[in-house]
């Protein structure tokens, strides 16, 4: 509906334009600044005298002989063994997504097809779980985990993350499966499939958009989590986010803030690409629950 009138530049449109531009600067500037700064030395990134130092790398050139330096990355990845945290994060994230999607798909499908009232209660439980600060849950988990001697290892964390994530996954996939017409699997069953075959041959081929969207959000939850991972993982098993947090404690005094900066940029980069490639799914996921009401 782009008629001529709508494309005319009115004052309102100009204001809107400026406003959006302003927001974009606010949204993007910190990332660009930190990404650029992560290739500099500390004297440039935290340059009190002149912020232009951080852009042109005055001290960086003096200290290392080049505008760019990867000292920060070297320090954090190799010296502080950030790669270990990266591997741990990959393990945790991969299994969390896998397990919660498996349960979520089966459960969501069954909930969407059942006519009983408990569907409502499960969704309510999901909502309440969503509302609980994760910290309250973790404080409950901690003591038995110590008692059973399963504290500090990755599988425990994965299970907890799945449990926290599950209501949300169920909720999303539930509403997604509701959108797939019932006739589809009913006609498959008329043709002689049983319930499982109907699911296998009819639903699975068309469920991927919903599963991918939900998977993305499970990924984000597992990846971004600080509360659970910082409380439940021992030092050698810790994931990226608590690792960065612990950098702060140890690194600040030694004047190696740049290690932490580099680690932060490394942790952000995957998210950056994620948003780039899956923007459509993320947007649809965010709005799925809302627009339908």
């Amino acid at each position, binding site marked *: 509906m782009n008629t001529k009138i709508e494309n005319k530049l009115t004052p309102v449109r100009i204001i809107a*334009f400026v406003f959006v531009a302003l927001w974009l600067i*606010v949204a993007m500037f910190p990332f660009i600044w930190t990404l650029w700064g992560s290739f500099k030395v500390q004297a440039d990134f935290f340059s009190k005298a002149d912020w232009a130092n951080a852009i042109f790398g005055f001290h960086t050139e003096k200290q290392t002989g080049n505008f760019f330096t990867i000292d920060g990355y070297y320090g954090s990845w190799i010296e502080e063994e950030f790669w270990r945290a990266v591997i741990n994060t990959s393990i945790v994230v991969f299994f969390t997504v896998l397990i919660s999607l498996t349960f979520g798909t089966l459960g969501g499908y069954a909930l969407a097809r059942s006519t009983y009232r408990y569907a409502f209660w*499960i969704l309510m439980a999901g909502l309440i779980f969503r509302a609980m600060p994760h910290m309250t849950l973790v404080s409950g988990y901690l003591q038995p985990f110590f*008692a059973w001697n399963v504290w500090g290892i990755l599988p425990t964390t994965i299970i907890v993350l799945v449990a926290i994530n599950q209501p949300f996954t169920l909720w999303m996939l539930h509403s997604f499966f509701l959108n797939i017409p019932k006739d589809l699997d009913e006609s498959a069953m008329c043709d002689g499939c049983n319930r499982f075959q109907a699911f296998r041959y009819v639903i699975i081929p068309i469920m991927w958009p919903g599963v991918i969207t939900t998977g993305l959000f499970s990924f984000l939850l597992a990846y971004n989590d600080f509360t659970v991972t910082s409380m439940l993982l021992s030092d050698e098993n810790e994931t990226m986010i608590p690792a960065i947090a612990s950098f702060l404690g140890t690194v600040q005094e030694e004047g190696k803030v740049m290690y932490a900066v580099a680690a932060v940029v490394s*942790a952000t980069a995957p998210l950056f690409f994620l948003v780039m490639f899956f*923007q459509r799914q993320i947007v649809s996921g965010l709005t799925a629950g809302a627009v339908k009401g």
Partner: protein
Amino acid sequence: MFLFIAIPIVSVFIQSLHIEHKQVIIVSENCDPFGCETTTSVDTEASAKLKEKAPLGKFNGFKTYSNRMHFAFDEIGEAWNSSDSFIVFVKKIYNFPLYRALSFTLTYTFVVTPFVLFLGFLVALGVNNLPKLLKGPTIFASLLPMIVTPLVGSLILFWMVDGDGVIGATLQKLFNDNSLSLKASPVLTWVMLMVYGIWHLMPFSFIVFYAGLQTVPHETIEAATIDGASKFQRTRHVVIPHLMPLAIFITLILLMDNFRVFEPIISFRAEAHATSISWLIWNHLRESAYPLYNAAGATSMITIFCVGILLLPVLIRTWRDFNEKNKG
């Protein structure tokens, strides 16, 4: 059919086990009568065993709740008696950890939420007016502050507002005050945390509102235009009513998210001036010489109670809607 009802029941059962565990533990920590009554026999055994093992788990009634770390009833009574004006009294109350945390958490929640709603709506309107080519990149850029890990996002901002960082140094120059630090003053710390909160959550309300704007019926807008409504009037009387349900949804999610504000406090290292409830629990569990499970448990229960109060209106509403839908 049976199989597919059974599987989610099993998965829900597993989930319910997780909740049960939590309840058992909380019971064993501070055994409030409600919790004890509702646990199943197996769980009571487990929690009884835990109670034997853990010296902290002995029965304490509501004392954990009323001690100095939490509601501090005795101390408040004392403060009330000993302070001569109301302001002194409030100041004294503010010294108790729970009230401190509660005051920040509530302020944060009720400041950030409306700001995020309002600004998100404005940006959504703005983006809706952009030419099509620019919309994609704009949405991409807008998503970033929300997608990025809260701890990392707040760290990035923290470094920028540092006295030597780009924003901090610029502010110092602007106000010509070399000792100006956003971290030193309580008020500025609160402001900083809230600005971060707005920055972090605005994309969410923007995206939802933006999606809502696409569903505004074109006929109604055209009809309003023909009737002579200005752009502002169209927004006010057609678009906003249409988006009202969305606004409620966003408010709900924002309330939940804001209430558990935690990570920014860690990365801004703001605990001297601002603590949230989640941070309080974390502190109980982590920073003390040995974890104070009962204190953490009591704080958790209080938190859950607060969340319940916050969500109650929405829950009742959903329940009513659901019933009506089923009847109709």
